[in-house]
């Protein structure tokens, strides 16, 4: 039964098959996501204990082929312009593969810092789209690169403060509605900056656990549908606030498992829908935080294997559920 067990071998082969996709149209349409997709696939494999399922050298070569020498950062695909989204994914992939030495850290740090706006928020690139996601990315990336000291922390935090809403949640831009994914990026960034004092932990913790629906799944905001990826955004936020027990773990686990494709592998946004690597990664990540047996520990702040973050001295005070033995 799809909802009783995590079908690890199937998911591993699903992720491996993505590099050989015959579905031409869908594949090329997502070229702008390629770097992100590789990070999602790699992280999911790590958490499932199959880090070596994709070739390390090939992956590093691909990442480096996306270097935009004009901008001094990474694009999503060879000869795509650099963007903060793909730059973080590139760094995360290289850190995971212990190949950060290949990066011109000075130039990347400069690229990231140059994207900070007067209001404190970060843009994605020179086109100027702003979003607290990009602020989180900047903080995460600078932290992994060891350059967090170059960031104007007060200025960065000030914008998060502007995005804090009456319900204790956070939005994408000042004045925008609270949304689980935006809550994650703000809370995780504040955790890295040691500024969780900006969060009303009780109010936000309650708002987050209110995302759980009777079917066990989590939604992004009140009166919206459940989606497997919110399992991660909500759960990681709660673990950072040390309130992960406020979610009914058994029901959520069942929900995530029921969204698996028992034939070709992969996890979808909800049971019965098409799978994709994004939901596969966040489903597995959530299960790891829920203590699902046999999985590797995930650091919810960086959304990377916990031991790697720990070794870099970057672990913050989050708490996941204990790993069950069965």
């Amino acid at each position: 039964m799809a909802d009783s067990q995590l079908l690890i071998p199937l998911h591993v082969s699903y992720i491996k098959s993505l590099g050989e996709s015959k579905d031409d149209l869908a594949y090329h349409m997502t070229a702008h996501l390629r770097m992100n997709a590789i990070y999602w696939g790699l992280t999911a494999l790590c958490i499932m204990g199959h880090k070596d399922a994709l070739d390390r050298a090939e992956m590093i070569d691909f990442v480096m082929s996306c270097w935009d020498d004009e901008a001094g950062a990474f694009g999503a695909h060879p000869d795509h312009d650099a963007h903060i989204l793909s730059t973080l994914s590139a760094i995360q992939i290289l850190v995971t593969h212990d190949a950060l030495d290949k990066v011109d850290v000075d130039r990347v740090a400069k690229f990231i810092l140059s994207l900070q706006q007067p209001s404190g928020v970060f843009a994605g690139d020179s086109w100027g789209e702003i979003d607290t996601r990009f602020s989180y990315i900047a903080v995460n990336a600078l932290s992994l690169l060891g350059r967090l000291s170059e960031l104007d922390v007060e200025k960065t935090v000030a914008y998060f403060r502007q995005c804090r809403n009456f319900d204790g949640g956070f939005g994408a831009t000042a004045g925008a509605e609270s949304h689980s994914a935006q809550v994650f990026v703000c809370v995780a960034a504040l955790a890295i900056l040691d500024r969780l004092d900006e969060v009303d932990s009780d109010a936000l913790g309650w708002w987050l656990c209110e995302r759980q629906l009777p079917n066990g799944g989590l939604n992004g905001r009140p009166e919206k549908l459940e989606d497997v990826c919110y399992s991660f955004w909500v759960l990681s936020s709660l673990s950072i606030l040390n309130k992960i027990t406020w979610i009914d773990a058994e029901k959520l686990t069942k929900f995530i498992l029921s969204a698996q494709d028992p034939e070709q592998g992969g996890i979808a946004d909800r049971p019965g829908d098409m799978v994709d690597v994004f939901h596969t990664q966040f489903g597995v990540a959530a299960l790891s935080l829920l203590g699902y047996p046999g999985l590797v520990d995930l650091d919810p702040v960086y959304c990377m294997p916990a031991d790697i973050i720990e070794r870099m001295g970057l672990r913050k005070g989050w708490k996941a559920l204990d790993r069950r033995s069965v």
Partner: protein
Amino acid sequence: MAIEEEQSILFAERPEWADVTPLAQYENINPVAPIFYTNEYKDAADYFRGIVNAGEMSPRVLELTEKIIRMNPAHYSAWQYRYKTLMALKSPLDVELHLMDEIAVKYLKTYQVWHHRRLIVTQTRNPGPELAFIAKSLQADTKNYHTWSYRQWILAYFNDDELWDAELPFVEEMLENDLRNNSAWHHRFFVVFQAGVRKGDEDRDEVIRRELGFVKQSISVAPNNASAWNYLRGILDHNGTPYSDLQTFVNPYSVPHTLEETAEGVVDLENPLPSKESHLPAVAAIEFMADIYEKEGGDSLMKATELWKSLANEHDTIRKKYWEYRIREACQKVTT
């Protein structure tokens, strides 16, 4: 030749594009993620790379980027270059917005569509029609996050009194269509409490009374609407009003339907009763009453604990651990 036919011919086959050198996708290495293209997309993408490489910014670039965007609305380089070209050509931006009206409706969930509009309207400095466009696109997708946050940005950026004044009626219409639209409730809070004090709203007490009246009415119609209860708490928190002020109103919602409700009598406008068809007790009302008792402290903590127990064991079992946390916290207050 009909426009549709013309657009299905590859750029490589069109004589007026012969002067451009198309650049193929970088394929020098064997990537982990190989790309396969349809001919049409590959053709357009190749010519886009050629144009960018040559630094060309001409009307035909607008045609090319439009084609790419229609096939792949998340291709942010195409959007970026299109914007630069529009600026270089000093193209009529109202025409651009009109074209974008059509594309936005098709591709409501991509970030790029909205950011492009933001850039354009920053140039045109004409936000009025944008609000009308946003209202229209919200009809198709009433909770679209990008659309609502774009509206919030326009209001804050232009900060025009006339625009602000029209917002409350707009939000009320959205809520009339769907009382459970959390985006609309959020927008209401933004407009009423986070946009400064506007003409006519100087009496803040009157504003609070009005908002409390509105949210109480909404709760009476749909007592199990989380957004309305969050809004109520938001008003009270923002203005430092004790929750106990609302005790008379909330109490009937925290218990099953009673005979008193159905009795004929004077209707208390300050405390509208739950609609007859509604499911009671409302979980949010029980929570609210528990918060009141907890604040009272002393003997009332027992009452709060009873309510939390009823939530943990009966009314909101999925959040059992949370309600047990509240009980523990309260017990600690008693013992310290």
